[in-house]
């Protein structure tokens, strides 16, 4: 125990006395929160900057997705929408959100796991649409839920897909000539599914290091120190600093279940636009579960909230306090953009910890 403590103290000293400027991107929104909450962000010397990345699924879901759900509810009043709570407050065009639809009497139910949505579909006679939004961490249980629905022949269970895959997003970030990122704190939970290997070719290609990191304070200290050392040595390696959870090849069972139902496709991301092969479509034999096909609607061109800097924030190009709405017209209670809604959003993290100055 004593030795662990001393080890961490030594790493803290290494971080505090690090003498070169470095821009680190923490890809995952949970990391953004934890860097604040643990105080480790405040411990960093001023020339080490943390940039929040696109790893908040709600934040990178485009406005058109919310608009589509709203149109579906209007055109097919029979359907039951099931969703994670975070999606409820995300504003669509003209700030209309699912909260409004709910208050208009539409049947929208918050679930904590995708399989709860399958249970609802089993009990109800009406069609149940699950808002299938998330990264690999969430896609795995969604695939499991779908598997459940298939095996139990629950026909009225549909998915409205907006899956996001992390590797294509990293490629998009790094191929941007304006990107100023020296290295990545890579998401522990997503890596538990995909493993360490998929990161290696892309980071090697762009000559950047990455460290797979857990979410507790000691993980952040180990991850940050390891990454800074790699940056200093000019290495573009991927190191797994969360080996208790993450394997080189990931979770094969989860991956094969995902692969059974979904196939990569081009996907629209807020802030990035269309990223090739960065999302999912249902495989042909399961397309009948695609809510987009089962409940077609015309979605007029979506409009992002005017002045909202979420599209820049998710790319790490702007910091939340640079947005004119931050903390004024946009707060977690009355969010203007998704980065303030989500419990993983960078704006919500900055707001919670009151940071206007960094």
């Amino acid at each position, binding site marked *: 125990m004593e030795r662990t403590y001393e080890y961490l103290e030594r790493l*803290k000293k290494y971080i505090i006395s690090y003498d070169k400027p470095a821009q680190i991107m923490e890809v995952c929104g949970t990391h953004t929160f934890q860097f*604040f*909450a*643990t*105080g*480790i*962000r*405040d*411990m960093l010397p001023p020339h080490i900057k943390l940039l929040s990345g696109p790893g908040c699924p709600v934040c990178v879901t485009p406005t058109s997705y919310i608009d589509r759900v709203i149109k579906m509810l209007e055109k097919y009043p029979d359907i039951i929408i099931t969703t994670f709570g975070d999606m409820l407050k995300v504003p669509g065009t003209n700030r209309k959100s699912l909260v409004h639809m709910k208050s208009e009497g539409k049947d929208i139910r*918050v679930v904590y796991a995708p399989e709860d949505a399958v249970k609802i579909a089993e009990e109800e006679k009406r069609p149940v649409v699950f808002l299938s939004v998330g990264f690999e961490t969430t896609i795995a249980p969604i695939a499991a839920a779908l598997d459940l629905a298939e095996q139990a022949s629950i026909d009225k269970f549909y998915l409205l897909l907006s899956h996001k895959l992390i590797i294509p997003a990293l490629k998009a970030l790094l191929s941007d000539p304006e990107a100023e990122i020296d290295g990545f704190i890579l998401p522990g939970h997503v890596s538990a599914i995909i493993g360490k290997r998929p990161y290696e070719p892309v980071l090697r290609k762009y000559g950047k290091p990455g460290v797979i990191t857990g979410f507790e*304070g*000691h993980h*952040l*200290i180990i991850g940050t120190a390891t990454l800074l050392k790699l940056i200093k040595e000019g290495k573009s390696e991927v190191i797994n600093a969360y080996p208790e959870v993450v394997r080189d090849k990931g979770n094969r069972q989860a991956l094969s279940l995902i692969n059974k139902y979904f196939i990569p496709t081009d996907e629209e991301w807020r802030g990035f636009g269309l990223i090739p092969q960065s999302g999912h479509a249902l495989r042909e034999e399961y397309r009948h579960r695609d809510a987009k096909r089962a409940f077609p609607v015309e979605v007029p061109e979506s409009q992002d909230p005017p002045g909202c800097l979420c599209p820049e924030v998710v790319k790490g190009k702007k910091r939340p306090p640079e947005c004119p709405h931050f*903390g*004024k017209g946009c*707060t*977690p*209670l009355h969010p203007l953009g998704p980065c*303030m809604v989500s*419990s993983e959003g960078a704006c*919500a993290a900055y*707001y*919670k*910890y*009151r*940071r*206007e*100055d960094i």
Partner: protein
Amino acid sequence: MIEDKILLGHGAGGILTHKLINEIFLPAFGGGSPLEDLDDATLINVPSSALVSTDTFTVSPLFFPGGNIGTLAIYGTVNDIAVSTGKPLYLTVGMVIEEGFPIKELKRIVESMKKAADSVGVKIVAGDTKVVEKGKGDGIYINTTGIGAYGGLGTFSEEPIKPGDKVIISGTIGDHAATILINRENLGIDANIESDCGSVVNIVKTALSVGGVKWMRDPTRGGVGTTLNELIMGKPFGALLYEETLPIKDAVRGIAGLLGIDPLYMANEGRVLMVVEKDKAEEIVNAIRKLPEAGDSTIIGEITESTPGKVKIKTQWAERFVPMLPGEQLPRIC
């Protein structure tokens, strides 16, 4: 019997106003007070060193578990006087009521105000009512102004605040804000929590009687984080809170997490934040813990030499800054 809703005429000074005063206000507030004379002004005896404080209450919703706008209006002003060592003596009450407001609810508010005032031994000596057209207000707003005897609850230590002094909170934090939010924002959660809305008079009196108290505030809007910053800003010392000792109810933590706010910035309506001499800290905590309203009081931090002018919090891993609240936090919380 008077109408069941407030009409514009209730504020016009005529017969309806008199009926309102005679049937609602006097039965509650009147009992032996100078209010019964219905004069334009009231003669009161004021001690040579008197404290005065005023506050206006706009909370939404008007009724919430643990209190209502009326009790909030009494305790809010009473507490401001108390943390300045004052024994609260007199209160005035001004109300702006929206046309159509149910008389039954007004009666409920007024009766609970009377009860709250009696519990701290403060007299309501003047009052006023105005009615605004429907849609021009939100039910009812209440202003209270209080007068208290300076030093009536004891005195502060004469020693200046210095590094090593301890920071004490008299109970769990964020209860009031969490209660209001859960009842206002349709969160669809059913948390068993109520506002800490209440008097701090006995807490202040008890702490001052132990001695060694250097500074006190009731951390209402902006919570412990903001109130402590107000003390520390521009000073040659800093403050360090200990995260692990902060008394926060699980329900409050949950609501705060859900809404993306930090309990450190959530309003309290019956707590005292104090800075005390290091050697007296334990004794003060033990003394006030005997009071039912301060059973969870704890030492939550200390005054530091490092980072002067700044408030920090020590987590398990490092220290993070607890800066001043930048903009709007939560409107209509009190």
